[in-house]
């Protein structure tokens, strides 16, 4: 060994009482139970954004279910005497260019948007989950077929596709059809998200362990793989609710949404108010505001849910 150019180190031992040695790998049981969903809920509860969005959504739901609680005015009653008139007693937001009460139309328009949104996400979630799960878990030919089919639907921007569908079905424009038009072309995104997550989860050891026990593939998928893959899809679904509401309003704006004579829709109102932008901008701004706030509520919820379920964010807590 070469000459030590430096002092030979002393043998230092820390005092035992200052450095007590614990039992190896002792089990510490916290009073609070903890798993993914519990932790996520606790996390969401703490954030002000969660409560704000919850409030907005609650109000929106109430308004859509019980419009009469919020206004007694008939939204369809048109009195041309009041065209573009400003606010007055009992009509806080004034009148649109047909003489209809804007506030009442906003209230009644809520349920249209919400119903479309809910039907769309129900469709996207169910179809997307089934397709994504089959493609991701079974792979091979099934995956190729489903992915190609998904690509085909995915390549047509869903609003444009909805335009075509609504045009073709112009006789039958109702909530169901419009939801079909929007949802029928948005499921590929959901399927892709789920498939991508499943591809990762299915390689985990606990999945192999279940297979080694003889659990059938379908049951493994249902019991172990799928529940652990749903988190990103749930986040995406919350956001797609907002997107569906926007889509309905865009379609109405373009004139291929729900027919104005049968349905009250914010998109229709905004479209109708276009030409009065210079003279009576508020007829356009009020329904726009209602739309924006509703969408904001769901977008904020999506944000909070995503942070709560995101593994990286959780790891830093």
């Amino acid at each position, binding site marked *: 060994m070469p000459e030590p150019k430096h002092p030979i180190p002393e043998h230092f031992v820390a005092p035992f009482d200052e450095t007590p040695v614990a039992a190896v790998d002792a089990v510490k049981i916290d009073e609070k139970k903890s798993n993914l969903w519990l932790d996520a809920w606790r996390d969401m509860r703490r954030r002000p954004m969660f409560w704000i969005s919850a409030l907005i959504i609650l109000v929106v739901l109430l308004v859509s279910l019980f419009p009469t609680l919020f206004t007694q005015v008939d939204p369809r009653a048109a009195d041309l005497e009041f065209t573009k008139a400003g606010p007055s007693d009992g009509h806080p937001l004034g009148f649109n260019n047909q003489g209809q009460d804007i506030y009442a139309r906003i209230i009644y328009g809520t349920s249209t948007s919400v119903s479309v949104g809910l039907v769309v996400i129900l469709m996207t979630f169910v179809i997307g989950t089934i397709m994504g799960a089959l493609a991701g878990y079974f792979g091979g030919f099934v995956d190729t077929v489903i992915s*190609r089919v998904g690509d*085909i639907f995915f390549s047509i921007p*869903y*609003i444009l596709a909805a335009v075509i569908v609504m045009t*073709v079905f112009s006789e039958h424009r109702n909530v169901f059809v419009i939801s079909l038009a929007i949802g029928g072309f948005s499921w590929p995104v959901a399927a892709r998200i789920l498939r991508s997550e499943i591809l990762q989860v299915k390689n985990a050891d606990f999945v192999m362990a279940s297979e080694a026990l003889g659990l059938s593939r379908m049951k493994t998928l249902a019991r172990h793989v799928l529940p652990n893959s749903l988190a990103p899809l749930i986040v995406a679904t919350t956001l797609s609710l*907002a997107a569906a509401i926007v889509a309905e309003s865009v379609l109405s704006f373009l004139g291929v949404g729900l027919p104005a004579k049968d349905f009250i829709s914010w998109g229709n109102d905004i479209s109708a108010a276009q030409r009065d932008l210079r003279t009576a901008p508020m007829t356009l701004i009020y329904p726009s505001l209602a*739309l*924006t706030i509703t*969408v904001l509520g769901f977008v904020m919820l999506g944000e909070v849910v995503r942070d709560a379920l995101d593994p*990286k964010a959780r790891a830093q807590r």
Partner: protein
Amino acid sequence: MLRYLLFRILQVIPVLLGTTFLIYFLVFAMPGDPILAMFGDKTPDPAIVERLREQYNLDKPFFVQYLLYLKGVMVGDFGMSFSGQAVSDILARTFPVTIRLAAMAIVLELVLALAIGLVSGLRKGKLFDNVNLIIGLVFLSIPIFVIAFIAQYFLGIKLGWFRTTVGSGAPFEDMILPAIVLGFSLYATSMRLTRASVIDTLNQDFVRTAYAKGLSRSRVIPVHVLRNSMIPTITNSAANFGVLMVGATVTEGIFNVPGVGNALFHAILRGDNSLVVSFVTFMVLVYLGVNLVVDLLYAVLDPRIRYA
């Protein structure tokens, strides 16, 4: 890399066939007379009806119809509008305008999104970031036509900074406002994506190693952090073409920009469904082309794909 490219190109073909088929199917396979249905509740000019029947080969079996239609598309013949104009002429006139608008919008939103997303990610949790996130959420929630009207009203009418509609020939200054509006609709998602990638990259080991090498912050951030984080944003921006086209349709309609979107907008309003179908088909083709380019871009930006 070669394999990757060929594979991607091969993948596009069935999708191409599938989408054109789907569009065609939606319109023409429905029960009833599709030509009359196209006119909705308007009364058609019999001469045009005849020409359209001929054009769409309705006397022939469905599959043959579709193949003939496809053949037409391949040679650039997209059929005719109800007013008798050749769709390809309309496209030739309007497509360049839309490209200009789209390019302006993308450049605008990318630059802004990358810059603000980067700063936000670097200052995660601090005031700038929190405020920025909230603003981002609000922007995300405002539908594009609302943005368009607000911009038109406040910046065009009230403040008079911009013209509210675009003049003929689409001069550059007139296009600024619609480009801003279109860019805005894309900005929020790009910014959030950049921010998330930046935060992700900052946690990567190689960033710490870069500092450990003795590199200064002013080198590590652009060369290592930004360079890696911008990959998802750029590729996403291009793949966002679908959103862009819808946005363009609305924006061009509202600001009267003489592009493809505007033509589509008015075609929808008019109920000129033949035109609508042709335009949508065209847009889908462009979308598929853009996606292919994006995949190429991915290979350029990420050596792991280039030299797999």
